[in-house]
């Protein structure tokens, strides 16, 4: 997403970037809650939705209204996958994010479970408590818990791919190839809008942020 944002900017577009879990109003609460292991599946879901709401209200929606391209690293779909993997109701979490604007484009970086697990385990020193789903009592072994939990999350993503209309990117390819594919999709799907240099709403349509269908 970072490369895509840079590329779009280099083409002369106004681009904004929003990252999951980054609201200044909420991130300290989230950080403390994770550190002290205070979350339940429901409060974990709600605090992330609160963070998302703040970014939507104060950042994403106003910038979209102003005609910028907003690139979001993770979106409501992360919650749909993770929160449901924790045991929260599918219907409830989709309603929770009903205020979210439906994106013009959604990319899903698909990677097989073994590769995903391998990347994380080979990367940092320790997997974090909630990342491994340790709150769910899946296994006493952190790596085993992580594997089971991430497996559930992947299943949720796969199950929603059609529902959401993901553009699936094979994340086992090189970064360059992935980026190439993303740019091709952006050009083919957003086409004319981009040629005019700014995202424009066609005459007769109400403004994107006001009439965009809810996420699902």
């Amino acid at each position, binding site marked *: 997403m970072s490369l895509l944002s840079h590329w779009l900017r280099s083409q002369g577009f106004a681009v904004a970037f929003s990252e999951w879990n980054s609201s200044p*109003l*909420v991130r300290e609460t989230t950080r403390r809650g994770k550190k002290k292991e205070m979350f339940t599946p429901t*409060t974990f879901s709600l605090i992330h939705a609160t963070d998302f709401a703040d970014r939507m*209200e104060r950042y994403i929606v106003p910038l979209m209204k102003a005609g910028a391209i907003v690139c979001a690293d993770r979106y409501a779909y992360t919650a749909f996958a993770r929160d449901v993997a924790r045991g929260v109701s599918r219907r409830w979490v989709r309603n929770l994010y009903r205020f979210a604007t439906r994106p013009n484009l959604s990319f899903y970086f698909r990677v097989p479970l073994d590769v995903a697990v391998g990347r994380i385990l080979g990367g940092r020193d320790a997997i974090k408590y909630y990342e491994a789903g340790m709150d769910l009592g899946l296994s006493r072994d952190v790596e085993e818990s992580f594997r089971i939990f991430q497996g559930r999350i992947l299943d949720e993503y796969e199950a929603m791919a059609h529902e959401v209309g993901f553009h699936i990117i094979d994340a086992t390819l090189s970064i360059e190839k992935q980026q190439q594919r993303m740019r091709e999709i952006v050009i083919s799907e957003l086409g004319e809008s981009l040629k005019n240099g700014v995202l424009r709403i066609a005459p007769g349509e109400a403004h994107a942020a006001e009439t965009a269908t809810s996420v699902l």
Partner: protein
Amino acid sequence: MQQKQPLQFYSEPLPGVDPEELHGKLIVIEGPDAVGRTTQVARLRQWLEQEGHAVLDTGMARGALAGKGIKQAKDGNTLGPITMTLYYTTDFADRLENEIVPALRAGFVVLTDRYIFSIIARAIARGEDRHWIDQVTGFGLVPHAVYYLRADVKDLVSRVVLGRGAFDYWESGMDMRFGNNMFDSFVRYQIRLIRALDGMAKKYDFVTIDAGRAPDLIFQDLQRHISNLEIVRLRETPRVNEASGAKAPNGAKRPRKR
């Protein structure tokens, strides 16, 4: 709406919570700002404890997880309406799971100063989708009773002026600027809140209490209603001499007055 039994979930089970394990009583005191809820909850708590009950009292933004974050967010000037609604809902979920449910498992009487209804009313007053917030808060437990302290805006205004002596930014709905000044905004916002709560009374089975009267009269009403829940019996057993600590007729020692 189909009437649900107390201590069932409104529409969405909380993962890991079995309502069959919950034995206590859940009592909600609702109403707009400055109506006197906090005073009544404190008096009710004292009375119920004197009657020998273990009582938990809990209220909005007092949770360990999100209470501080909400306060800090409100100290600033960027908290949007949907964010505020969800922050309060997070706080409510935290208190429900970590305070209210354990207390109910242990057989406590839980007195809550506000519940999902204030969250829903504030969201409606801010123009948010009521079906959305209804479903979001559907993991709430159905209380044994909801006492809605209802007062007119003019009563609320006098209590603010004569009591606190100043209008509060958030209680005046100034984030939505319902008026150019805090008084006008307060009046319009509180009217919206009252209308929203009035609109929920039937659906959620509120017992509406006229809170435009003196606090003692309101308290007596609440005592009378709560006694009908069969938690306490008013004056059915003779009062023992509490100073002597003599045993009550059924052999149980009465708690000493504080």
